[in-house]
């Protein structure tokens, strides 16, 4: 269990709401004239997050759990400054890595090595700085000669390894990880755990979204449980995760949560 160095917040989320406006065709789609006019379509506001408040302590591994569509990825995107809040406020006390760990694949036609450069530059590093880190990234991702093949030829596990390797080596103060680890194999997950422990020791805050409950149990010290966009529970991982797992078992055989742990 990583050491929580102090209780100063790295991120404060106050009454955050995010609404999406979705539009889809109304009931009468057979009338082509109605289809042509956009205002004939129905607009519906969907709340991805509603009145979410939480405090993420610096140097902690903060996990976000919840079923599909609970708003986990939306929350992460707001923390990363990618999505704007519809209401409420997010205050960051550290520099957040502007790159979500899932989103490498800058150009799937290019090699892994070229994508490392692009990922680093997107993160705001200079080319020389990226080159400095390249050896470590290659070492961590352990892709061997495949690093010079186009990323489109990679398996999802290789993709995840490369994405995670790039994200953790970008000198982040706050690292946002979205499901990236789900596709990695056991050995890689072990390496990830070691790396995350190492980062936390250096007071890096890690916010983690994953369906791999075993992994989260092993590594997280705080946990936020989202349910349909609302906070169901927040607190120490020892308290929140068992409650979440219990609910999963109750709600008829949702075993997928344990599967890819």
């Amino acid at each position, binding site marked *: 269990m990583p050491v929580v160095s102090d209780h*100063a*917040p790295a991120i*404060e989320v106050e009454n955050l709401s*995010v609404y*999406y406006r979705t539009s889809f065709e109304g009931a009468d789609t057979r009338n082509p004239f109605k289809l042509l006019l956009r205002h004939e379509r129905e607009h519906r506001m969907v709340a991805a997050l509603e009145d979410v408040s939480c405090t993420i302590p610096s140097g902690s591994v903060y996990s976000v759990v919840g079923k599909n569509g609970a708003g986990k990825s939306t929350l992460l*995107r*707001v923390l*990363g*400054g*990618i*999505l*704007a*809040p*519809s*209401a*409420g*406020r*997010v*205050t*960051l*006390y*550290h*520099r*957040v890595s*502007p*790159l*979500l760990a*899932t*989103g490498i*694949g*800058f*150009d799937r*036609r*290019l090699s892994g090595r*070229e994508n490392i*450069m*692009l990922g680093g*530059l*997107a*993160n*705001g590093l*200079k*080319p020389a700085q990226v080159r400095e880190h390249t050896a470590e990234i290659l070492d961590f991702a352990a892709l061997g000669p495949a690093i010079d093949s186009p990323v489109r030829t990679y398996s999802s596990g290789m993709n995840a390894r490369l994405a995670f390797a790039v994200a953790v080596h970008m000198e982040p103060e706050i690292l946002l990880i979205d499901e990236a680890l789900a596709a990695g194999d056991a050995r890689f997950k072990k390496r990830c755990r070691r790396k995350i422990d190492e980062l936390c020791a250096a007071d890096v805050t890690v916010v983690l979204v994953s369906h791999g409950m075993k992994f989260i149990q092993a590594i997280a010290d705080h946990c936020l449980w989202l349910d349909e966009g609302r906070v169901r529970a927040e607190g120490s991982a020892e308290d929140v995760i068992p409650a979440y797992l219990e609910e999963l078992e109750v709600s008829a055989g949702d075993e997928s949560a344990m599967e890819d742990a």
Partner: protein
Amino acid sequence: MTFTAPPSSDPSPPPSASGSARKPVAVFERSTLALPALRIYMRQLWGRRSLVANLARSQLKAENYDTVLGQIWLILNPLLLAGVYVLVRGVFRQVGSTPMERNAIIANLIMGVFFYRFANSIIAGSAGSILRNKSMVLNTNFPRAVFPLIGVVKAVIEFVPILMVLVAMHAVLGQPFGLSLVTVPVLWLMILIFSLGAGMFFATLTVYLRDTTNILTFVMRLLFFMTPIIYTVDEIPAGLLPYLQFNPLFPVFWALEAAWDGRWPPAVTYLWFGAWMIGAFLVGVAWFISKERSFASRL
């Protein structure tokens, strides 16, 4: 969202957000229509210049990986296109009455096709850039102007070999290398700025109205035929001229035709296109960067 400070590089703190003594690095709130702080935005954008250059280079490389002739297509493509237009024009109308006149018309046509392709590749490339780079828009938070700028850098890189071909063709066709050619780089730069502004305008529009890219293809095709490329300005029937003048690109290609032919372009063409350029750039850039914070929620 009042984007008080960008999270990656700028520590200019917003007014105290909480009781905490520590200064926040960034505060995200509900988005407003206001422009972001331009100085910070430009600094962030400047910090991504290597990213723009790298993405442009690598995309160009990747686009021509799979073809046998590879990068040669960059030149071959517009040349063949120009050839088709010369052919089409020859079918409908005699290409000049003397060999001299014929060569001048062909030289102008090739130049026009190449320059129009330059403008079109920036406008169309920028317009689709947000949708095309969806996964990057959803997973990163650097200034979105990076995406249209990639298209500009690509178009400029592609234009270098094309310019060499143009000069060679100019010589082969026995056209004058007059002093008026010094205006060509200026006109080229004006086309670039206009196209970037128009492209950013359409990029924003595309996020809200996906049909834009489809419509734009036809608009650009129509404007091509409304531009003095496959015909010269002299050949335009008087009755048609008022309509062609609605085309923003009309005055600049009029100026290019004159410059290419060894004449000084009329001053009115600069002023006219200059007004379009400034208007398109200001409107396009302002709209794009005031809306870009909400792009991710629309994809």
